[in-house]
């Protein structure tokens, strides 16, 4: 099923869409990768992170730093001269190496996520406290990058469009097409990873931690270790997504660590349906598509729409679109419109509430 959809995106969509549109779709697909990471920590483990922008931006910066260093021996990136910096800051040096950069894209975000997770979870700081602290961490990282003109070009960020990658300029249609393909491959990879993590006993333990963490302790598990690992994995996924997004939009800047952007990531998952991986991807694509549609024509309406989306998802559709479908949402609409539910066997059997309930349960298990 997933393979089929991926094939459609790999083969058929590029035939229909021009590269400029494909580039936008590629960006959305990168955002869908972050959504998978968010779903892993929030949907399954119950940790609402409002700071995934940190990891997203770190991945982007790692790649952008490497691309900025494509210079003749002895030169340093141009922006440094604006601030009178003559020597490359020490932490830039390793990014000369492409293999190191590829590692750094996910290892650095994972390490920071793991560290942040460890100092917070170790003290049994949970729930909204965790959310607030991740948000504060986001503000801190924003300040750190935004304020350091001399180290990382501050507010202006790092541009990538004119660097070379895959044998061409990053901004060129050819490379953008390759990046689109790469994004799909990595999205499928992230999906498979999350599927593996949530599918087995480990995944059920995550759900157990979400539902009743103290009880997990009394069963002999140490939830801290599990939460740290999941948060780190999620950070790594966000880092990869950030790197892909950066090269497809041509810039990485501290704006990636905007408070609103990180919370928006949560709404993608919520719209699609938390604790369903397909939902996370679907939600990210739908919301971003809606954003493009709305903000192209009515930029003012977009924030109203987004705000309303938060309210609707929380109050009316807590399980998102996927959850709504699975719990018989279509039938609800039919009954509101005054139609009878579709009958597949004897009406007497179908209308029996006990049987309906059990049938729903079986369906939930199957899906």
């Amino acid at each position: 099923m997933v393979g089929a959809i991926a094939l459609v995106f790999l083969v058929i969509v590029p035939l229909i869409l021009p590269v400029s549109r494909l580039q936008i779709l590629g960006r959305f697909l990168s955002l869908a990768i972050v959504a998978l990471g968010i779903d892993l920590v929030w949907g399954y483990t119950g940790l609402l992170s409002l700071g995934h922008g940190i990891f997203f931006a770190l991945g982007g910066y790692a790649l952008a730093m490497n691309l900025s260093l494509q210079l003749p021996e002895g030169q340093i990136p141009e922006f440094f001269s604006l601030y009178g910096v003559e020597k490359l800051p020490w932490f830039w040096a390793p990014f000369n190496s492409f293999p190191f950069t590829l590692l750094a894209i996910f290892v650095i975000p994972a390490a920071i996520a793991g560290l942040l997770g460890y100092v917070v979870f170790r003290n049994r700081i949970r729930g909204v406290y965790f959310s607030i602290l991740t948000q504060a961490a986001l503000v801190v990282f924003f300040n750190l990058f935004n304020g350091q003109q001399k180290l990382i070009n501050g507010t202006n960020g790092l541009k990538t469009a004119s660097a070379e990658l895959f044998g061409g300029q990053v901004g060129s249609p050819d490379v953008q097409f390759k990046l689109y393909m790469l994004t799909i491959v990595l999205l499928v990879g992230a999906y498979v990873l999350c599927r593996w993590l949530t599918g087995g006993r480990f995944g059920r333990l995550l759900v157990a931690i979400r539902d009743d963490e103290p009880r997990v302790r009394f069963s002999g598990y140490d939830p801290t270790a599990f939460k740290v690992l999941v948060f780190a994995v999620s950070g790594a996924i966000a880092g990869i997504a950030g790197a892909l997004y950066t090269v497809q939009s041509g810039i990485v800047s501290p704006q990636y660590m905007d408070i609103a952007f990180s919370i928006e990531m949560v709404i993608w998952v919520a719209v699609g349906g938390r604790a369903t991986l397909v939902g996370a991807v679907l939600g990210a694509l739908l919301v971003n598509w809606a954003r493009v549609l709305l903000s192209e024509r009515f930029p003012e309406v977009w924030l109203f729409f987004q705000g309303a989306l938060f309210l609707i998802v929380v109050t009316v559709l807590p399980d998102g679109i996927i959850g709504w479908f699975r719990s018989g949402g279509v039938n609800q609409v039919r009954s509101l419109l005054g139609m009878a539910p579709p009958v597949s066997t004897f009406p007497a059997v179908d209308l029996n509430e006990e049987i309906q309930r059990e049938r729903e349960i079986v369906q939930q298990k199957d899906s």
Partner: protein
Amino acid sequence: MNKILDIQDVTVSFDGFKALNDLNFSMEPGELRVIIGPNGAGKTTFLDVITGKVQPTTGRALFKGRNLRNLPEHKISRLGVGRKFQTPRVYLNLTPRENLELSYNRHKNLFATLLGKPSKGDREEIAQLLAIIGLAAKANIPASVLSHGEKQWLEIGMLVAQSPDLLLVDEPVAGMTDEETERTGQLLISLAETHSIIVIEHDMEFVRQIARQVTVLHQGSVLCEGTMDEVQNDPRVIEVYLGEPQEEVTA
């Protein structure tokens, strides 16, 4: 040093209020002990101390001769202490089978849980356990749709799956029908053949069914210990439960 549990002079105080007051308690391996006591006697705090949720202010708790101070809950659990809560706490979004699997898992560290799979033997044992607690037919539906009594049983099953040496069971029959209560009693008695068990209960009928040794807690300390008949005829116990005017003066 062959006592399975030995509580020595334990006091727990919350902002000056002593939930446990110089409590001494010990238990031999294989014993089935029932603890009764009026509300606020410190029964739940007593279990909290053993399972590591609350640290004793003074005194110490020994399990199989090992001091439990400063051990986190999951380590104590791995030493062989299992606990069932007052209101059933099962994982509602998982099925009974998955609930049992999580408890049954013998290697509870991170990577074993991530990479390991339950073996065939494990799955058979879980199936047996499901049959014992009467949930074989409902093994694959979410635990949230189980009845209250079934959840209580599932939690007892989870406790057994952990295969602890000491079971701490807090009010196992609260909210059960008479028939369910009777069956729970039988289950506990059969478990007592291979485990040490502490049961906290209010239901005197049930206590009479299962109890051999009864300990009465009152205001954070042990009031008396003995067989059910001895305890019931102890004037101090009658005083605590029925209340006498002097009681309030001394308290």
